[in-house]
């Protein structure tokens, strides 16, 4: 409960209107301010190093000699050089450590030390300090009670955001309603009301919310983060809530009915720079326009992946002829050396394979030419004799590579060098034109250094002993 003191010192300004203190008490309040800023973190409600806590009047009195600063331990400690072991607050070395842990320990300023000395000089009166502490405690009790109500009755988690962790450098509250299950009604809104001006984050994700709740919610001038996702809220309800959240920076609306009214409300919130708009009726184009000028802003919709998953062409497909020469088989590469059968056609006596434009061709022993138009799944006879060609890359280095290939790959006169991704070259034996073509047994892919990256031959692959191959970037029947 005593921790409240600290909190209240931070919140005193916002919790209930306080009478301005009489001028005589100013000095006392200044001293209290010095003590709370520089001493309470070690000698206060949380810790009492050396058994001392300076948020209690008796203990304050134990370290001062009214009227005599020179004999006052408090003053002596404040005035010692930083290098002295007894200097308070402790020296820089540990304050760095503390700063990293989120506690700031600044040395008191000269003016602050003077106010303490002056206060001791005038007799170290404590009546105003005591009154302030009592008032703190009383408001803290009230606040605690309303927060307890909030959490107990409504299933909210209330967490304090320390000033040093807060975006605007002021302490505030985070209220998380996600984990309760009852309908949030007017009572919930009224409980929120008590700390409305200090709510920094409000999470209502997935909760069932009554209209009363919205109407009764207070204006939240410091609300930065608002989570409304999965509430299925109506457009107007969202807009009315946004009207009470003028300082909003982060807003999550996914899976709500947010639409035109919400959009109009959003236009007025200039501080907003992160919006989750997936699964809403908010128009993407207009939101993008709205966010265009806001630096570092984030707008989230669904980002679908391209249909063509594989950059630079999908898994390699091969059109092959089976050993008996009775079937054409389409294979899909499963790994560099493994293939799955995608489709088979009963096309016998195939002598040559080729492609031209948007079609694949085979020539049978009878001289008949069949055509498979891309995107179709059946071969049809065609009268045309296609003139097909491939881009030939023929450099001295590639000729060298060619010479290094096994004899079986050099047995025919024609060769084709197909450029592949990342400087690789596919060396395949194909023909130019369908006339006089011969089906070849293998092909090989090499990189610039001549390292074999991929080989395709009939050895141990499906179907055993297959005789030919045409490399395709994707499934031609799709």
């Amino acid at each position, binding site marked *: *409960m005593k*921790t*409240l003191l600290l909190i209240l010192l931070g919140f005193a300004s916002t919790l209930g209107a306080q009478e301005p203190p009489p001028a005589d008490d100013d000095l006392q309040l200044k001293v209290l301010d010095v003590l709370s800023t520089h001493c309470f973190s070690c000698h206060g409600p*949380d810790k009492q*190093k050396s058994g001392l806590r300076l948020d209690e009047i008796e203990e304050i009195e134990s370290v001062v000699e009214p009227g005599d600063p020179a004999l006052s331990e408090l003053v002596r400690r404040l005035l010692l050089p930083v290098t002295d072991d007894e200097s308070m607050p402790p020296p820089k070395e*540990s304050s760095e*450590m503390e700063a*990293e*842990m*989120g506690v700031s320990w600044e040395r008191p300023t000269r003016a602050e030390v003077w106010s303490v000395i002056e206060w001791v000089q005038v007799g170290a009166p404590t009546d105003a300090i005591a009154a302030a502490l009592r008032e703190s405690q009383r408001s803290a009790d009230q606040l*605690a009670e309303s*927060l*307890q109500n909030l*959490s*107990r*009755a*409504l*299933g909210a*988690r*209330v*967490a304090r955001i320390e000033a040093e*962790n807060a975006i605007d450098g002021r302490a505030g509250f985070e209220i*998380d309603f*996600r*984990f309760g*299950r*009852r309908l949030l009604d007017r009572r919930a809104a009224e409980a929120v009301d008590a700390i409305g001006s200090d709510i920094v984050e409000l999470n209502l*994700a*997935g909760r069932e919310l009554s209209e009363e709740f919205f109407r009764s919610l207070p204006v939240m001038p410091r609300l930065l983060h608002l989570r409304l*996702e999965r509430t299925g809220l109506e457009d107007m309800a969202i807009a009315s809530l946004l009207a009470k959240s003028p300082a909003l920076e982060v807003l999550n609306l*996914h*899976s709500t009915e947010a639409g035109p009214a919400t959009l109009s409300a959003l236009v007025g919130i200039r501080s907003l720079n992160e919006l*989750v708009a*997936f*699964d809403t009726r908010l128009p993407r184009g207009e939101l993008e326009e709205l966010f265009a000028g806001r630096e570092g802003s984030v707008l*989230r*919709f*669904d*980002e*679908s*992946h*391209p249909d063509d*998953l*594989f*950059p*630079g062409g999908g*898994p*390699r497909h091969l059109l092959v002829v089976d050993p008996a020469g009775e079937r054409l088989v389409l294979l899909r*590469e*499963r*790994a*560099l*050396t*493994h293939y799955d059968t995608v489709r088979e056609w009963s096309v016998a006596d195939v002598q040559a394979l080729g492609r031209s434009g948007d079609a694949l061709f085979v020539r049978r022993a009878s001289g008949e030419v069949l055509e498979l138009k891309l995107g179709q799944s059946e071969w049809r006879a065609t009268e045309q004799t296609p003139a097909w060609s491939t881009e030939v890359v023929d450099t001295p280095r590639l000729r060298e590579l060619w010479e290094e290939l096994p004899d079986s790959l050099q047995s025919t006169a024609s060769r084709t060098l197909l450029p592949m*991704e990342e400087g690789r070259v596919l060396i395949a034996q194909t023909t130019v034109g369908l006339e006089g073509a011969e089906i070849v047994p293998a092909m090989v892919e090499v*990189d610039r250094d001549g*390292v*074999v*990256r*991929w080989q395709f031959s009939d050895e141990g692959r499906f179907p055993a002993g297959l005789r030919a191959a045409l490399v395709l970037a994707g499934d031609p029947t799709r």
Partner: protein
Amino acid sequence: MDDKKRSPFHRPDRSRREFLWDAGNGFASVALAGLLGNNWLRASETNAAGDAANPLQTPGADPRIVHAPRTKTAKSVIFLFMYGGPSHVDTFDYKPELGRYDGQTIDVKTFGRGGKKSQGRVVGPKWRFRRYGECGKHVSDLFPHLGHCVDDIAFVHSFYAESPIHGSALLNMNTGRILSGHPSIGSWVNYGLGKLNEDLPGYVVMLDETGGPISGAKNWTSGYMPAALQGVQLRTDGPPILDLAPPDALDGGVQRAVLDRLREENTRHAARRPGNPDLEARIRQYELAYRMQSAAPEAVDLDRETEETKELYGLDRAETRNFGRKCLLARRLVERGVRFVQVYSGGGHNDDNWDAHGDLVFNHNRHAGRTDKPIAGLLRDLKRRGLLDETLVVWGGEFGRQPTAEYAEGTGRDHNSWGFTMWLAGGGVRGGVSVGETDELGSKAVRDRFHVKNLHATILHLMGLDPNGLSYFFNGLDQKLVGVEGAQPIHQILA
């Protein structure tokens, strides 16, 4: 600054804990520390039923719980555990040189289940690598969906673990030690941060349909911590949690009456034995089970998801349905405040997991085929819902695999704990980066090497905890997940 100096245990404010220990109450210090450090705000974090604060939950002032100096933190972790050890050189660690030596026996030192060897036959690359995303990351054709997520992912290619044997390596990855009996990382996270949702477990484990990993529950144990912090196994088919549904005879408030009576007796019993965490844990588990009867079915009800979402996770296809359900469940659980969700890909033995000793192509096509789309779907779904920033996703196995074959024939690779890849996404991780390197064949980590502890330190740090401060007093020692020697987070991947 050296770690000792930073550690709060070297500051003079340790007296309270010492006092407790000196008073002979060491075993009870967690609960007592919790009660004594009675920060009212923490204490007010109660559930809807109005239960008192959880004494096992972290009180703000406990000197054992040290928060990292970070303002934006991950709230939950989804750890996708690829049991068996996925091959880094065939997935995310592109090694063009492997092709050059394909089939050749070369000098390379390895240490796998077959012991230490100084020579091996190189198994060339089996999958094409392509560049994805703005960062141009090379990803193999095993993960075409995940490839499109690389700009949200930080890859760490230079992990090493302490053991190349599954059992001990799994414990290493899950608990930080190769020996049994230590709490797993999900327990540490829940110990450090407390539960968000009192109606669900804070730590959930989902296993592969073929069974659990080797050593089973030791991988999600709470070790020497209270049992309330251990992982709860969630099933994706049938009842999510076994024996959770009350029998018919307990209908109509009978169960509540029984529980109230039990609680009364237990509380009376506890009153005579103050500060007994085991007793308190038991009381709380009864209540948790009761509340879960209504909360868990809703959390795991995938029928509430749209068809589009189900398809995104691959629920429409037999191959990806099972793992996809788990990924989708994981998202629903973190939405509902579960701190740590671990999902296993692979279980049982041999090719039921990523342990590709025989046919690498068969094995990895199988497991990548089952997980690629669901994982990519999870990342994309988290992102579009604004959850990726607060949800840390971790992918990896207990180790990687060797560039060389294990046997004279075939493509199988042996275990490799000297160098392997894991990746992290979301939760404060910088996307589109790759850190660390293995040698040219991927046989061991050589640049910016990271121990498994560094992964743990990174996870704790991202959750807002100080890995070198978070400790639990047991056996006369301030035990830490990262060990008393400590470990730093991987700073290169922090946003």
